[in-house]
């Protein structure tokens, strides 16, 4: 592990943890970006074209050592949304502790964008 992993590598760590959480169907697919590109919107959405890129955002927190992590998930039907978001947060924190200990003070925000 490097001392300061690139946000992209951290996003991969976060994304894998999220997808392994029971009740998560997939990350927000990011189809809106396909349409937004037509009207010049979507600047700063942080997409890189990678699959699921719009489902995880990792930024260095302002003025702190911590990270700001935003996760956007589509849930599988039949799971209580709040319970899944709590499990997602725990999974992300655990994965970061293990694979990116410098990121332990991360703030993790989880948003449910759909249920399928």
């Amino acid at each position, binding site marked *: 592990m490097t001392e300061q992993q690139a946000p992209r590598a951290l996003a991969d760590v976060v994304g894998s943890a999220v997808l392994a959480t029971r009740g998560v*169907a*997939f990350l*927000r*697919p*990011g*189809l*809106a970006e*396909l*349409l*937004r*590109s*037509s*009207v010049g*919107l*979507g600047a700063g959405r942080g997409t890189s074209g990678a*699959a699921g890129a719009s489902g995880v955002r990792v930024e260095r927190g302002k003025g702190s050592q911590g990270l700001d992590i935003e996760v956007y998930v*589509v849930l*599988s*039907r*039949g799971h*209580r*949304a*709040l*319970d899944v*978001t*709590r499990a997602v*947060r725990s999974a992300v924190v655990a994965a970061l502790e293990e694979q990116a200990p410098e990121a332990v003070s991360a*703030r*993790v*925000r*989880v*948003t*449910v*964008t*759909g*249920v*399928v």
Partner: protein
Amino acid sequence: MAMNEGGAPGGTSFEDVPEDEILPCGRELAQVWEQAETGEPDPHTAGCPHCADALRALRSLEDAVARTRDDEPQEHTWDTTALAGRVMDVVRLELRPGRTLPLGEADEDAWIVEAAAARTFRAAVDSLPGVRAGSCRIEADPQDTVRPAAAPPPGRLPRGPARIRVEVQVGLSWNLQLVADEVRARIVAAADRELGMRVAAVDVVIADLLDDEGTEGRQG
């Protein structure tokens, strides 16, 4: 069917939400998808990078949605037509999410988009016999927003209990007070059991009456 009956979320900024599902080439996303599903050749789509990107994204979404089948109870099995519909549902939820609403307690950082929550509530209402849900809006409860603990992030409601307003059409055989109570109970139960959303109040508006066949009863 509109995802969020009641129209665009008024009074809130969603300037980055496209009005239509139109690709940069001018084709409508749903139409490109439907045509590809039929297998009919389309000279435009064959040579268009925007359509190709869209189809690739939709195919990968279709795979993802199909995989969720393994996670579902048997009674929810669905066919391939339903699969295509569910893919477009996911797309539309992403395009028109509405406001972002808090889940759980005030000190948590968990959220759900209004359109997904409203869909859950409408399904709960539709489970009552002779009752059809229409528009469903979810707001912050004004009683609760007097305490400005911390400003919510942009586009998100304050972290307090929600106030839900739902319009319903009901069969003539219902007592209106009774049906309002039943609707309220279903929504409160769904908010707790399916979402984990705190609810301050549920306003039920009887928007119309249905005759026994389930069609609107009022003429003109």
